[in-house]
């Protein structure tokens, strides 16, 4: 799973003693290695044909880029970002069976940990932004400063460990950390946050200002900006001076043009894919997996080690019946029939998730930690113990969209069977946000689009004041454990902290989860060579075999 990546790099770097050195990554010349895993191909695999250049690659996703200024994007994960921008470190998948990652050189050629609180990075020379300006240490520092200081930045959490950035020479920077941070390198790679920590052109930003920059983005990536039709598409074209080389020895990317379309409706996107209008869809709903698999012109690409969690449920811990009643929360968790959810909505690819946010491969995961498997009798007993022998009326707030709608209906019925008579309220997105912020709810659930790359990022979901802490968990003990976990290099030690944290969450029944579906993509078979960073499509090595 994704923690493999971190573990591996920690093993590689810190070692189990974990005090001093993060091994420097050998500065390797960046040519793509044909053996590195990428998308599966239809039919005969392995017989890697010669890549073809040219053509327009069309992608579709169900959300629209909030802004092309990726530091300020609330969803910094689409392929338009990874094509426009590069990060200092790349988060590359090296084993697609288990989802093992390696941190590879990006705009930073190498890095070393001088001491637990200092990282020195050598930057790649000769890299140009699309506007012709140079990428260098000054620009890198400006970017890192912006990520941390702009209040609207979505890279703030990921870079919070950095105290200051020094320019050592034009191509070397020194990161001075506030405290030891095992998560910072993964953070700089973007990880589960895609391109949030990517490098933007300072020259363009100075010239245009943030509003105009967002409409004319400039990065160092393999594709440069051509056109934005808001709520419809982003069109990018090949950047001739890109620094990375392809298998044929010439610069990447292989395709001339890349179009990232916004198709809000997955059914419509599926129709388009099948008729050839688009080449790849990110995250198809489980119900469509069979359709894709049975269509000879399509390829199904699954990443089982990651993927969204559904029915991630939180309780109002400020007021209302759940706030002070542990037994009531436990009753609710016992009443969730995760198997049925996974089966009915997961269409064969869903799997129950007993622990919120923790997967079997995550640090601190332990089956012995208290859990709440589906048990109607226990749920009813807990409800009695909670002081509601005759049941209780509660509400469940969800955002009116799919699959939340369907899952909400299932959950409401399951809870009602156990005696928590649930009034499902499906709300327009902002009404949901508004009600949840005002604590005008008993329980609610939201979508966890994928696991965090580093356990440290989990804080946002239950740390006091966390950006996605909708139930307002505020537990000093939990905060302390997460703080300790986030500043410890020693993997075993870290795992201990996180095990305690998960145990605490479970004992207090702060959060619950339903099921998980694997991250996936559906693509046409003529599209080849695609890779992912974390699980996000990276099209620089994609090509069209037409």
């Amino acid at each position, binding site marked *: 799973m994704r923690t493999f990546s971190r573990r591996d790099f920690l093993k590689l770097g810190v070692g189990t003693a974990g005090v001093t050195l993060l091994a420097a990554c050998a500065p390797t010349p960046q040519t793509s290695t044909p053996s590195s895993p990428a998308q599966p191909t239809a039919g005969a695999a392995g017989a890697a044909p010669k890549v073809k250049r040219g053509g327009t690659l069309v992608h579709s996703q169900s959300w629209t880029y909030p802004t092309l200024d990726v530091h300020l994007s*609330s969803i910094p994960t689409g392929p338009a970002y990874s094509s426009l921008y590069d990060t200092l470190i790349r988060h590359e998948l090296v084993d697609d069976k288990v989802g093992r990652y390696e941190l590879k050189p990006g705009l930073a050629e190498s890095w070393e940990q001088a001491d637990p609180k200092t990282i020195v990075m050598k930057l790649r020379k000769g890299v140009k932004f699309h506007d012709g300006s140079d990428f260098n240490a000054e620009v890198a520092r400006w970017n890192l400063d912006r990520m941390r200081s702009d209040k609207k930045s979505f890279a703030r959490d990921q870079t919070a460990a950095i105290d200051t950035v020094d320019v050592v020479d034009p191509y070397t920077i020194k990161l001075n950390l506030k405290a030891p941070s095992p998560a910072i390198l993964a953070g700089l790679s973007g990880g589960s946050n895609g391109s949030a920590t990517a490098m933007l052109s300072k020259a363009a930003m100075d010239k245009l200002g943030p509003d105009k920059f967002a409409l004319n983005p400039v990065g160092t990536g393999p594709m440069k900006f051509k056109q934005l039709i808001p709520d419809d598409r982003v069109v990018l074209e090949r950047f001739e001076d890109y620094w990375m080389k392809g298998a044929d020895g010439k610069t990447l990317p292989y395709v001339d043009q890349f179009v990232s379309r916004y198709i809000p409706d997955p059914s419509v996107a599926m129709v388009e894919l099948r008729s050839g209008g688009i080449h790849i869809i990110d995250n198809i709903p489980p119900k469509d997996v069979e359709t894709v698999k049975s269509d000879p012109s399509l390829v199904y690409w699954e990443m089982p080690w990651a993927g969204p969690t559904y029915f991630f449920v939180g309780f109002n811990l400020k007021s209302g019946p759940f706030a002070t009643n542990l037994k009531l929360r436990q009753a609710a968790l016992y009443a969730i029939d995760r198997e049925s959810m996974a089966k009915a909505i997961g269409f064969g690819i869903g799997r129950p998730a007993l622990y919120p946010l923790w997967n079997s491969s995550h640090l601190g995961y332990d089956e012995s930690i208290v859990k709440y498997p589906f048990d109607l009798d226990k749920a009813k007993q807990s409800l009695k113990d909670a002081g509601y022998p005759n049941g209780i009326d509660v509400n469940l707030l969800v955002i009116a969209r799919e699959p939340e709608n369907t899952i909400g209906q299932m959950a409401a019925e399951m809870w009602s069977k156990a005696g928590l008579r649930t009034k499902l309220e499906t709300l327009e997105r902002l009404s949901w946000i508004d009600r949840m912020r005002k604590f005008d709810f008993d329980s609610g659930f939201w979508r966890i689009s994928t696991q965090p790359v580093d356990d440290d990022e989990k804080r946002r979901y239950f740390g006091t004041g966390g950006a996605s802490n909708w139930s307002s968990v505020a537990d000093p003990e939990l905060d302390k454990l997460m703080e300790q976990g986030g500043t410890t290099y020693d993997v075993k030690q870290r795992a201990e902290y996180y095990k305690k944290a998960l145990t605490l969450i479970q004992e207090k029944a702060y959060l619950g989860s339903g099921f998980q579906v694997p991250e996936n993509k559906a693509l046409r078979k003529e599209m080849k060579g695609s890779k992912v960073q974390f699980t996000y499509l990276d099209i620089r090595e994609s090509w069209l075999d037409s």
Partner: protein
Amino acid sequence: MSRYFLRRAIQSIPVLLLITIITFAIVHLLPGDPALAYLGEAAAKDQVAYEAVRLELGLDQPLPVQYGKWLGKVVQGDMGRSVRTREPVTDGLSGRLPVTFQLALMAILFAVVIAVPVGILSAVRPGSRTDSVGTVFAISGVAVPHFWLGIILIYVFALWLRWLPASGYKSPTENLGANLQYMLLPALTLGAGQAAVIMRQVRSSLIEVLRNEYVRTARAKGLRERVVVQRHALKNAFIPVITIIGMQVGRLFGGAVVVESIFALPGLGRLAIDSIMFRDFAMLQGAILILAVAVVVLNLLTDVLYAYLDPRIKYA
């Protein structure tokens, strides 16, 4: 005539002003604010970011001040920036306007091409089989929900027959052929209901005209029925039809909302819906204003055309 035109235009100013106030009120009555929309579910609990965004969007100011500032700028031709995409509202509108206009135009064209001949045939022989078929068609056309018809058309033509793309948009300047392929199903969907209305109007007003004295006179003169219809009846029968068509364009914008959503067209209707969902006050104002102005202008043009065609109407 031009004075009439001017007077009508001036009369519509208070209405436009009321429209802006209603829009403003709507956006601010909606729960949640643009800053929360900007942050989304993933970060809306982040108080620091929330305050920063509110400040930047000017949401910290009292409502009347926000409205006054906005109106002041609009008068100078500056509609502000979208709070969602940060693009100037005028750019956002000018990008989407052609899509909706083309959609409406094609839908009307489609409706007229079907409705007028059927309407005439029905009117010339009321009670005939043609008339019955036409009536059934007309009544059905009004009763079909757009969103359902759209789904069925996508299923049949895109998924099953694979003749046309299911969704999306290409600009006509880029590739006219592709543009038409993309616009065909949406225009059909939107046009069906309009065809029904127009057909009924053609039929009923032609029947009425054919009952008139001068038509009878023409017939009495021994003119053939075809000539009677073509030379004498049609022009007069078309006066109310044109009114109906002019007004339908306004109604079409309402239908465009659904059709653009289903076919993923980047038009004004979808923009309006998205702007509501994102509390994008500046953009919503712009979209509604454009649509409302378009309706006002169209009604005006229709009136003028009506006056031009109907010599009985005199304007002071």
